């Protein structure tokens, strides 16, 4: 059947047949991607692990009845994980009604060198400070390395709308990180 080629097809078929080695391979291939996605969307390691685990279970249940050619399994899996992330973000909003902390980055003293880990933490905080849809666009395209058509489809928006979210997100990140001098990491 002519359709969307799926690099995971063989693996998904084997998982669907209950092949234990394929389950291991699926975990090795997808768990890091799911954990990365959930960590960057949620900014919380424990919640990200829960989301990654739940998404993996859904993948296992879906594999036997997956229809190839309509969508890539990885794209579907991203959608599942994103839905789980948004459920948790929604719950957070319900719990913390007002008094949402202003997540503006406190920055660093310009004359102080930063360790690479400090830079990483700054970038992570800046990412978490983005509006959710901008963060989702940046995470999908930059960190998850999805193509623009795939990412836009996942988000249910046009490619033009995706580009707008990406541009605004990257601009905000550039401003948030503007005080970090190139090469500053490792100097502290």
């Amino acid at each position, binding site marked *: 059947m002519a359709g969307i080629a799926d690099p995971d097809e063989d693996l998904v078929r084997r998982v669907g047949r209950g092949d234990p080695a394929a389950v291991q391979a699926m975990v090795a291939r997808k768990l890091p991607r799911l954990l990365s996605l959930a960590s960057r969307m949620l900014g919380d390691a424990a919640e990200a692990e829960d989301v*990654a685990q739940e998404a993996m279970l859904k993948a296992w249940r879906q594999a036997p009845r997956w229809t190839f050619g309509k969508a890539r399994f990885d794209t579907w899996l991203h959608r599942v994980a994103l839905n789980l992330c948004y459920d948790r973000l929604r719950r957070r909003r319900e719990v913390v009604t007002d008094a949402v902390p202003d997540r503006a980055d406190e920055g660093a003293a310009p004359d102080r060198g930063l360790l690479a880990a400090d830079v*990483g933490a700054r970038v992570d905080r800046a*990412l978490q400070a983005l509006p959710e849809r901008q963060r989702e666009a940046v995470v999908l395209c930059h960190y998850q390395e999805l193509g623009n058509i795939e990412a836009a489809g996942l988000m249910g928006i046009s490619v033009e709308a995706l580009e707008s979210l990406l541009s605004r997100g990257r601009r905000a990140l550039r401003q948030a990180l503007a005080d970090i001098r190139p090469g500053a990491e490792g100097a502290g």
Partner: protein
Amino acid sequence: MTPERFAAILDAYGADPRRWPDAEREAARAMASARADALAEADALDAWLDHAPRPVPSEALRQRVIAAVGAVGRRGRLWWDRLTVTVGVGWAAAACAGVVAGVGLTRQLAAEATADAVLYQASLGLDEGLIG
């Protein structure tokens, strides 16, 4: 490709051509050398973004996921086994009921046949006695 479109691609996707739209990648590559400043600016932001922590699943998480998948699998198999047993027991019960009913019916028919034969024999004897 216009310079404006090239700038828009850098703004949205950054400096790495692998992230650029498939249909525009080659045209954008051709323009890149003439727009080195814009490319360098986008590249600097990409480099910062790549400093973000890269989460790696712990062995504990990996084992937890595999165990959870296994547990779901066992529950699925248990459900199937139970279904199989239930259906099997049902069929066995139906078969037993059939056998019991069949045996009962056979016995009843046999008894009725015996009774008929006795009555027939008796009637013959009666007839013979009457004749004799």
